[in-house]
């Protein structure tokens, strides 16, 4: 009896799931048949252009970008599918990319996790739809263009902040999640280039594999090993709060300068309180907005806004104590926090 019941149960489950699948598929199949009935009306008003935006992980940064895509969706009358790979892996990005192409979107803006190894995957996608990269570029792929920060320039900006808050020849420690990400390398290179002239030296680079607890421990350990360090630089967004916490726990607040990137709440609070000298922020809102705009234009066959070198750079902003209040209130407005 019991065995019969389980058999019955599994069979019904299989049948039910089959029904579910076919009904989903059915919906997709019916969509191409709808245009004939609506063809009399102008096609643009009934069929909105559908574009997609793929992030590389889940964070506040992408929340801001999402707000940008939404604004652009309103302004330009397109549908935006915003996808966040939950595990933040390259495999997941591939799955999402394939699914979106199956869905038939007119264009995709992606932030490739591992650009060099994903080139093939990006090229496959670029053959089937308008593909652009944002935030992180894959210059060797067939992408139509790149929209994002020039991380080398962002590093240079951070270098200027360091020069403004420490005397020439000071010792600097860099903290970052992993150094195999291109943006980390570019920022570091820009930073090195800028501080070369004033004799500032980077005495160590510590990585934490994006484990926040470890990011704090790294800072504490570095303060033990190098008591004469003048300034910490955090290359990734969470490194700012982590450095602040580590320095605070070690009781060296005020003695060690902090320069970081991005706009986490704790970072901005640190800037406001004067514990962090400054932070170099990207403009994720613009990433989202411009990506949707360019994708919409590409879908309409318009390539005028893509420059010769296929790179659209969105300049960074250095937030210090002077402009933190205005920047923060604007940010809160975008994110819908009061």
């Amino acid at each position, binding site marked *: 009896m019991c065995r019969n019941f389980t058999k019955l149960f599994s069979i019904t489950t299989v049948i039910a799931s089959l029904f579910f699948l076919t009904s989903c598929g059915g919906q997709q199949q019916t969509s191409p048949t709808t245009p004939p009935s609506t063809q009399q009306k102008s096609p643009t008003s009934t069929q909105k252009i559908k574009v997609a935006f793929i992030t590389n992980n*889940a964070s506040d940064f992408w929340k801001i970008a999402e707000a940008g895509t939404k604004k652009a969706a309103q302004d330009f009358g397109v549908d935006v599918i915003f996808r966040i790979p*939950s595990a933040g892996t390259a495999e997941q990005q591939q799955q999402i990319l394939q699914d979106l192409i199956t869905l038939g979107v007119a264009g995709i803006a992606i932030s490739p996790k591992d650009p060099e190894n994903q080139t093939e995957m990006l090229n496959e996608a670029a053959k089937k739809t308008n593909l652009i990269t944002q935030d992180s570029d894959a210059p060797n792929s067939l992408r139509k263009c790149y929209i994002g920060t020039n991380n080398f320039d962002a590093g240079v900006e951070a270098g200027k902040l360091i020069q403004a808050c420490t005397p020439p020849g000071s010792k600097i420690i860099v903290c970052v999640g992993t150094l195999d990400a291109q943006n980390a390398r570019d920022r570091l290179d820009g930073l090195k280039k800028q501080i070369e002239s004033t004799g500032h030296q980077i005495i160590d680079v510590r990585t934490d594999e994006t*484990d926040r607890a470890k990011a704090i421990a790294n800072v504490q350990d570095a303060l033990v090993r190098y008591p004469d360090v003048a300034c910490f630089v955090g290359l990734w967004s969470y490194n700012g709060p982590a450095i602040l916490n580590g320095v605070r726990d070690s009781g060296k607040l005020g003695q060690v300068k902090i320069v970081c990137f991005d706009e986490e709440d*704790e970072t901005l609070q640190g800037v406001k309180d004067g514990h962090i000298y400054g932070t170099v922020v990207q403009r994720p809102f613009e990433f989202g907005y411009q990506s949707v705009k360019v994708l919409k234009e590409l879908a309409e066959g318009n390539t005028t806004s893509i420059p010769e070198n296929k790179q659209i750079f969105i300049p960074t902003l250095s937030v210090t104590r002077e402009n933190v209040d205005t920047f923060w209130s604007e940010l809160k407005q975008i994110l819908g926090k009061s």
Partner: protein
Amino acid sequence: MRKTLGLIGLIIVLCILAYSWEWLHWYQHGRALGLPFSSNFLSLTNFKNLLPWIGLFGILALAQSVVIITGGIDLSLGSVVCLISVIACILINKGEGWSPFLVFPLAICISALIGVWHGVLISYFNIQPFVVTLCGLFAYRSFARFFAKDTTQGFGNALSNWKWLGKGSLLDWFPSLQPTGGSPPSTIALLLDLVAAPLVIMIIFAIIVGIFLHLSPMGRHLFALGANEESARFSGIQTNRLKLMAYVICSLIAGIGGILFAFKVNSVQPSDFGSFYELYAVAGAVLGGCSLRGGTGNVPGVILGIALIMVLRNLVNILGIRSELEYVVIGGAILAGVCADEFFLRRSQKRRALEAQRETK
């Protein structure tokens, strides 16, 4: 006992190695410049940094060891840490939400319920612990991300008293002893500062779990269950209930650990907060003498095991070993420790067998 002594020995050897490494470095570079030698690794500040982390990870390792002793494993530990801290952060809402006196008991209850869920599936439905907790590993993190809407959570500037549990030390209780102005702190103050709150909490848990495992009849039954479930059942132990309890204890302690982690770090990103912590806990438990086959393990060993891993992590930073090589050092050391243990175990078994032979002759 032998195991515990071996681990203490291993930690001492590591300290000596680190000390000599630092000395060599000074001998080669610093001596010529006339710098005095001082060890960064064996310094008070370093221990002050290191001990809270041993406390925090030690709590997780204790949780894991209870389950490992039954022959199971809890892979969802890191995700439970993440989920519980996210829930706590959201409900407290930087001090504007519910009262912490309501939220923390609630969060701990949720973690216990997760344990009940694991325990029921594993013991009454006979599903393998690896599978159940693996699914938990995926699901709870995803829940956490859903609840947090993928935004970073934290307590902000609220709960400054509660945060003592994660980042304070005993010195905070004695304001009169705290160094004022430029005067150097007294020896008592320095020692009190070393006794970090998470370390104290970990020791309290270690004592409770230790009494439970090693002195109570229930603990004995747990070991029997781990060694051979069937014979334990035939000898009248209610194995299902016992296993359920082990998973509840595990998740409960992990949940408390998660809240402490949130106090310490105060920035909980649901997508990666606590990821891989379950594996640190497993590594600590195994290094401390727990067998993944179940039936063996002891609390002091587990604490020393996780301490060893934390010391290794700290050493990599302090000695300036390149970050890339960190996991080579940790992985290599764990493997070496476990292999050495096996080697000594076999040797002593052989010797005992020989002695037994001699006696019979």
